[in-house]
């Protein structure tokens, strides 16, 4: 895959690029701040070589707040087909909501930076987002669920269904959920159907169901 990596910390950027290259990906451009990220993207877009995925830090210069995030929203508005994976030292549902609000339907990821350390999982997330999936950090999902404690609809879910729900929100497939919870895929499918019925959400294919769940939790 052809990737664009943006992070203001040169150490982390080099580490990330090295890791991705050793995993067989090609890093076609790097950026050290938000304006550079946007500029590199539009330069690539101009020659019709938009990367397969942008990986960017939320907190970057110039203002060292959420410049990276705002650049990502801008990119998703400009190039709706461009998948974006945001990394951050600190995650909050508010930022995830901002990303999900953009009208683009391309893949989207929002992960704590240290998840990169679980290299195999991280590489899987990279593939998933590039393929149009949505991956949101378990931390965000946990905070969303926590904020909605006492919600009459959520309290109808069994503890097991809640577990499945948060794994699902993280972008795990039925097979991965079955793996983690040590149950059969058929059992997972049943849980998922129950969750969607209880939350009053229509039937959903794999890639869309994360959006549905997050949209529900963010409501």
């Amino acid at each position, binding site marked *: 895959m052809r990737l664009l990596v943006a992070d203001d*910390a040169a*150490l*982390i950027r080099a*580490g*990330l690029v090295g*890791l991705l290259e*050793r*995993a067989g990906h090609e890093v076609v451009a790097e950026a050290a701040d938000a304006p550079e990220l946007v500029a590199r993207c539009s330069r690539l877009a101009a020659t019709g070589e938009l990367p397969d995925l942008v990986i960017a830090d939320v*907190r970057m210069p110039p203002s*060292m707040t959420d410049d990276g995030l705002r650049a990502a929203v801008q990119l998703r508005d400009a190039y709706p087909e461009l998948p974006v994976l945001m990394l951050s*030292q600190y995650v909050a549902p508010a930022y995830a909501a901002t990303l999900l609000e953009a009208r683009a339907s391309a893949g989207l990821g929002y992960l704590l*930076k*240290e998840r*990169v*350390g*679980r*290299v*195999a999982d*991280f590489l899987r997330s990279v593939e998933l987002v590039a393929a149009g999936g949505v991956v949101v950090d378990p931390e965000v999902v946990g905070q969303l669920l926590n904020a909605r404690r006492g919600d009459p609809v959520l309290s109808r879910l069994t503890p097991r269904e809640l577990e499945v729900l948060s794994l699902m929100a993280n972008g795990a497939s039925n097979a991965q959920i079955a793996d983690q919870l040590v149950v059969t895929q058929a059992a997972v499918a049943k849980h998922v159907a129950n969750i969607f019925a209880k939350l009053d959400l229509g039937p959903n294919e794999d890639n869309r169901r994360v959006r549905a769940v997050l949209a529900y939790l963010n409501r």
Partner: protein
Amino acid sequence: MTTQSPLADAEFRSRLAAPHNPLRMLISPIGWRAVLYCFTSIVGGVLALLAAILGVLVLPLVTWATANAERGRLVVLGLPRLTPLPRTRVRHPWDPRGFSDGNLAVWGITVLFGLVDAIPGAALAILILGLAYTLARQLNAFRWSIDIVLVGGELAVALVIGLYVAWALAAAQAIIVDIQLRPHSELSQQVDELTVSRRNLVDVFAAERRRIEHDLHDGAQQHLVLTSMQLGEAEYALGRGDLDGARRALQAAQGSVEAATTSLRDTIRGIHPQLLTDRGLVAAVRELAGRQSLPVHVEVSGGQTPGEDVSLAVYYLVSEAFTNQARHARATTSTVRLQLADPLVLEVYDDGVGGAQVRPGHGLSGLVEWTRALGGGFWLSSPPGGPTLLRAIFPNR
């Protein structure tokens, strides 16, 4: 609790002083200011009396308003306006607080002086106007005689006497009003200053927290994230049977953890230097000096150990001075002088290019606030071209 500084008193007296030469009194501003002041005193005194008679039920409001007018009327004499205490603002017309803070006494003074000023004022006004009328008639008649000189002389003498009388009455009233109202006014100014300095201190704390957050984010956290990535890579490499790759990744991870520890140590030293707690200010300042790339002379005199709060402030002042030297001064040598007495005196000198400033929101300005909060004083002399001398004193009891 309020003390009138001798300087303020001297300033006050010098502004009220009248010239000794009677002819200069005719052209000096204070004489004519005094006439205007006395005239407004008469009007104000009569109004204050009438207001009190007609508005006897709202007497607190009358005395409060009178005192406020008197605070402002000092401007007529070229004196600064006095600020009222915030709490003297009356809530309703019969609020008894309208009497407090010298207001009632000032009302009495206003009425008294208004009536007293009216007697010589009227007499002198009649005399001067009469003389002026006579003089004008004689001048109009074009009959040059000794009378014109006499009347002119009498008019000049009457004017000078009038100016001196007006000056004496005005100065007396202003001094009594000042004695009554200034203590409350100075209290009010101190309250304002304290409010500002407390807000500044809160800003200092907020800035300090942001600095620590930045230090942790840019330092230890980055290295730890990198460590996690490198460990992940080692595991990934092992999974593929790539032992060399795994070893390289593990070595890199070890380096990152060491970097994280170093960075954490720096951050912690920035929050509270361990040496300062264990060995005291002098040792901590010497250690700080030793870590500069510039040669630093540390000169210590006296042996009165400062308290923990003063020590910390001095340490940070020295630290900030060094930071600024390293960044901007282009100095070849630096000297820290520390006089451990009461007051404690700190001087940091460098022979660099100068031009240092205390800019709001920057490191030094927070430390200046801190110094003031501890009852100390701060001076910075840094002309363009240098040298730079930073001086701070702290009460050290």
